[in-house]
């Protein structure tokens, strides 16, 4: 009897276990497509970008002997003679194999003028004879400058902090010390600050505009509520580009808004609402507003109206009831909306590109520039890496201070 019961229990436990396993396997299979999608579309590109921002083997691959010869050099005195002959060899081979342009473009990121210097030296390097130092100087006197060799040495390192340094407006001398770039070339630090500032401002504006609206919608009858919600959602169904271009039509100097202002205040009263920071702020706030309204609204719906009434019946003024009872309960929704808006705003680039003009540009516009125009993917990766790091830090701070379990999207 006892045995049977034990066997039965054992079987039950086993069945329970295996059915649990099966369920887990089923769940895993269900999320597998999503995981695969995320890996391909998200994890891989980001790792690739981060990898590019710290490593680049172009110079080490194309000019291997030069890289080896320069490694022993201190970066201050004359470069060793072995470096000259090694570079002559490497250049001849690079010219023959057609890799010279690639390596020259890479080194030119570090020091302007290296592109033509390397290419023109490579064209004649097969006629070089010892003493090589003189042969190099005969092509161009720049070869007598240790900084030029220092640039080659830094560029030949496979792992480099150079892109991150450049993304923080730093540059490196031949002996390896970091210094600030000249003031007229410093831009990224300022753009990072501006980007965070704009994202914060847009989040604040979205909260100021979105919270009252969400409150208003949440306190309507169900029918009106749905109608209003559709109005909030409507822009969602319109292309981002169309909405941004619509703002151009509205805000430009001879646009609708300014026509209205001119009607009241005369032609002189026209304001510059676009091609500057104002345009960026207005358009971004509008576009991101639904991300604030929707989570706030759905959290508001879940707050029982009885609580505010109870507070009032216990003697609270309407303001106290709102501020001490209602508001704290809706905060998780507003915080979720705020986080969403803030993080989306950090990476925005279409809108600033179209309405931001000169002063409304953000760091993402620079990343796009280095991706598509200057082809300095390493620097783009560095800028993107810093932005990503900044978001992660903020996220962690947020998790520590407020707690992620207090985030509610509905």
């Amino acid at each position: 009897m006892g045995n049977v019961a034990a066997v039965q229990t054992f079987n039950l436990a086993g069945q329970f276990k295996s059915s649990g396993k099966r369920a887990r396997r089923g769940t895993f299979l269900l999320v597998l497509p999503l995981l695969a999608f995320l890996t391909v579309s998200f994890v891989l590109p980001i790792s690739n970008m981060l990898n590019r921002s710290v490593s680049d083997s172009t110079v080490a691959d194309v000019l291997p002997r030069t890289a080896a010869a320069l490694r022993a050099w201190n970066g201050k005195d004359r470069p060793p003679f072995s470096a000259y002959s090694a570079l002559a060899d490497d250049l001849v081979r690079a010219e023959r194999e057609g890799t010279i342009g690639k390596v020259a473009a890479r080194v030119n990121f570090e020091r302007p003028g290296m592109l033509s210097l390397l290419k023109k030296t490579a064209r004649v390097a097969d006629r070089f004879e010892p003493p090589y130092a003189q042969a190099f100087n005969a092509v161009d006197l720049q070869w007598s400058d240790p900084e030029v060799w220092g640039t080659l040495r830094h560029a030949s390192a496979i792992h480099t902090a150079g892109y991150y340094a450049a993304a923080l407006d730093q540059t490196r001398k031949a002996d390896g010390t970091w210094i600030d770039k000249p003031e007229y070339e410093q831009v990224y630090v300022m753009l990072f600050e501006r980007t965070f500032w704009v994202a914060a401002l847009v989040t604040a504006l979205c909260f100021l505009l979105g919270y009252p609206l969400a409150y208003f919608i949440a306190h309507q009858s169900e029918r009106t509520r749905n109608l209003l919600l559709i109005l909030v959602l409507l822009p969602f169904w319109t292309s981002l580009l169309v909405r941004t271009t619509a703002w151009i039509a509205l805000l430009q100097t001879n646009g609708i808004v300014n026509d209205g202002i001119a009607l009241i205040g005369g032609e002189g009263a026209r304001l510059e609402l676009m091609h500057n920071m104002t345009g960026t702020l207005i358009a971004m706030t509008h576009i991101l507003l639904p991300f604030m309204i929707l989570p706030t609204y759905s959290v508001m719906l879940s707050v029982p109206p009885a609580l505010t009434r109870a507070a009032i019946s216990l003697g609270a003024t309407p303001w106290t009831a709102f501020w001490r009872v209602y508001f704290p309960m809706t905060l998780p929704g507003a915080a979720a909306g705020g986080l969403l808006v803030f993080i989306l705003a950090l990476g925005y680039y279409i809108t600033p590109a179209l309405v931001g003009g000169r002063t409304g540009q953000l760091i993402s516009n620079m990343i796009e520039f280095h991706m598509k125009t200057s082809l300095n993917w390493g620097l783009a990766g560095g800028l993107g890496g810093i932005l990503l790091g900044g978001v992660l830090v903020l996220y962690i701070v947020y998790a520590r201070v407020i707690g992620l379990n207090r985030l509610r999207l509905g």
Partner: protein
Amino acid sequence: MGRTTAIIIAAAAAIVVLAGVLLFMLGRGSDGDVNELDKELSEMKLPDADATAPTPQPAGGTALAGRSLVVVSWGGAYTKSQIEAYHKPFEAQTGAKINSVDYNGGIAEMKAQVESGNVTWDVVDMELADAQRACDEGLLEKVDAGILPPAPDGTPAVQDFVPNGITPCAVTTIVFSHVIAYDSTKFEAKMPKTLADFFNVKDFPGKRGLRKTSPKINLELALRADGVPADQVYSELATKAGVDRAFKKLDSIKSHVIWWEPGSQPPQLLADGQVTMTTGYNGRFFDAQVTEGKPFVIIWDSQLQELDVLGIVKGTKNVDAATQFVSFATDTQRLADQAQWIAYGPARRSSLPLVGKHAVKGIDMKPHMPNAPENSTNAMQIDFLWWADHQEELNQRWSAWLAK
């Protein structure tokens, strides 16, 4: 409660959809969309061309029957001119099929294709500076100048093309020009005539349009306006003092500038009254003047000329057909034909006398060519080799200057 849940689900779905759309756009880049817009804008201006087009009717051929080529270009009226002048006759002559794809310049896409080994483009139309860069990076096939047909009078191609017209990886099709244009209804007594007037906001009030994306063009114009002769611009720019000088000149109008990016924007800015004068591509202004009848006037003084080229993407399976296409498209007649559709100058000297009337409007195209003698008295060539060396440092300074 059920409806509330439904609404919440709908909202969540909307967020997901929008996030998806955002990701897609961020991923694809806005330029695609801007390009779309650009294309639409230029397409709107397009005349009903086919009715009056002189249909080229070369003898039908089948040498490349069944083959297809992807030719990438800038879209709008420009691609239209290439389709009429190159693609249609090439298809008729060889039996090949040409798929025209639009892009917005730059070599990032080409680089991605070559590096991933998945080359889908065959021939790309690009600015010479980009072609040089792409050639350096090993993104283009070498083109043998010997395969290019000579001029009708027997002049070899190498001597027939404009200077720098044939490079190791690319063959020039057109000379285009960065010029200044103004809206003649915005000035009363005195009309601007020179580049210096562009920088004179006191006598010629109103906003100015300048290209945002690059210091190229802007620095040259600033120095030219400051009195530097054309042949000394680059030696001046090679010094820090010279660059300082250019930026100082630009500082004098910085607060009056509206910055443009795609080439369709300058005529649009003029038409909307956003600016009274702007830099831009001469072909775009011509289009607005002639096909839309806008009261724009081009100032040819101190124009900056640049070359646009055809290159073959490295690693394409159609190198033979692509090479045939490039050689066909850049012969004397084809380049002259293209000038009937757009106001860019043919890159061959032998094509200039063959330039006729606009295919739709019937006006004589010769006076509208950037390289017509009367327009190019003090024209300057953009030095693409100089820019290859210096764009990195000047871009940095340019971005810093712009952002402040």
